[in-house]
């Protein structure tokens, strides 16, 4: 059984739907990438899954229908969302960001897990008392991911994590997402515009075009498809 399954999901803002009947699934422990051009509805899709925008149809996570739940009730089910761009809580220190990430937890291991992230990302450890807004773009993205993982999710939604990062940092970022997947077993659904690296760590990929989605194809097949390469991979 899939960890996440969307069946004919419609979603959007006020009057207009942006998504028109999305079918999609992510299995436990799997990395799935969604490719799409600007304005295709990638961000809306993730926001519809995590409950930030209203949706119709059916969103089933871990066997339970979460279509009607608001965002703040969904994270405790094991679904974390790293929003696009300024996902960090700029006025809070790095440490408080991580602590806020563990808001739904009441166990004793929060401090230990924070320490573990400082080991994974030493830069965050060095700057733990600084306001998150003062970190570089790459550090903020690392922090946003670490913060989301503090809630110990089973599925991580990542919205264009490479946005605004240098090629080197992007590579590093996808390396750490891959480690998160293999070491923690967290499933990842990542949305990307430049998707070469994303396809490398993903098992499957979907193409999202103006609010509709085609059945998934293996990542290797997508990476080798000339039309996909021309449209999304830029070479």
């Amino acid at each position: 059984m899939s960890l996440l399954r969307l069946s004919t999901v419609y979603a959007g803002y006020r009057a207009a739907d942006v998504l028109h009947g999305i079918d999609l699934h992510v299995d436990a422990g799997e990395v799935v990438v969604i490719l799409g051009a600007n304005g295709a509805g990638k961000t809306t899709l993730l926001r519809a899954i995590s409950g930030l925008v209203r949706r119709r149809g059916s969103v089933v996570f871990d066997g339970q229908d979460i279509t009607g739940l608001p965002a703040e009730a969904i994270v405790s089910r094991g679904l974390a969302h790293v929003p696009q761009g300024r996902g960090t809580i700029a006025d809070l220190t790095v440490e408080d960001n991580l602590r806020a990430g563990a808001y739904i937890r009441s166990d004793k291991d929060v401090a230990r897990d924070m320490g573990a992230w400082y080991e994974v990302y030493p830069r965050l450890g060095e700057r733990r008392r600084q306001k998150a807004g003062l970190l570089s773009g790459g550090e903020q993205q690392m922090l946003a991911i670490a913060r989301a993982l503090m809630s110990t999710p089973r599925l991580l939604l990542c919205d264009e994590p490479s946005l605004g990062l240098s090629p080197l940092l992007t590579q590093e970022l996808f390396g750490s997402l891959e480690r998160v997947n293999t070491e923690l077993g967290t499933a990842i659904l990542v949305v990307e515009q430049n998707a070469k690296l994303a396809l490398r760590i993903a098992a499957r990929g979907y193409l999202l075009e103006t609010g509709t989605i085609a059945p998934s194809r293996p990542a290797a097949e997508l990476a080798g498809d000339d039309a996909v390469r021309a449209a999304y991979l830029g070479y």
Partner: protein
Amino acid sequence: MDLLLARVIEGVNNGAIYGFLALALVCVYRGTSHLNLAQGEMAMFCGFLAFSLNQAGLPVVAAIAVTVLAGALGGVLVERTLIRPLGEHAEYSVLLIAVALFLILNAGAGTIWGGDPLPFPSVLPSDPEDYLPVFGARLRYQPLLLLAALLTVLGLLYALFRFTKIGLAMRTAASNPEAARLLGIRVSRINALGWMLAAGIGALVAPLVAPSTTLTTSMMFNFLIYACAAAILGGLDSPGGAVLAGLSIGVVENLLAGYVPWVGSDLKQGVALVVLLVVLMVRPAGLFGTKRVERV
């Protein structure tokens, strides 16, 4: 020298009132960026409530305590029934609601308790001979109590924000409401909590101020103008900044009125606001406000 000290003390006494109300304004503003113009009237109404409780036989301290609880509940009620249904990004609607609330509470208090000033008993002795002499100046007990209450509330707020999980949630929601929701923080409850704190603080101010101003429906009007100025000067999201700004405005205004002949007591409010304007031109985020720290 004695006169200077006396003027500073009087300035601090007034400034504590400004700072107290400013603290209440900040509690609401932090979460929702709404400046609650009805804050003063909410406090005034609570002052009358405390008066009635006292008249009904409750000792004055107990009456104040009950009023603070009632005020806090009232704050939640206002947020849930009047503010929350307007949804997000409803700045102008909320402004209108605040003005409406202002008028309703003002007229309501006038209808219930009448238009004449009512005497309110002080918590500490306030006869002319009750004071602490300090270098020839007089420190009176009730203003000292107000200042102590202000600093205590400020300390409690600081501890709440700094050391508790709910405080962390409040800071998170204030900084980035959407990210907060994604972490499981119920932002709408946090906003209701902000209103609760603000209304409770207002309900504490009015009965402590009332012995010197007497209870009238217009008792908070001037104070609210200063409190808005103090909240803005302090940066709108900084409790400590609001209190310090309130105290500073009180002292500066009183010194200006005392030492600049053409200012006197008629112009002191205007001059204080001009000083505020000048400070904001130099520091638009206020003295202690969070400068949006964002690197792109």
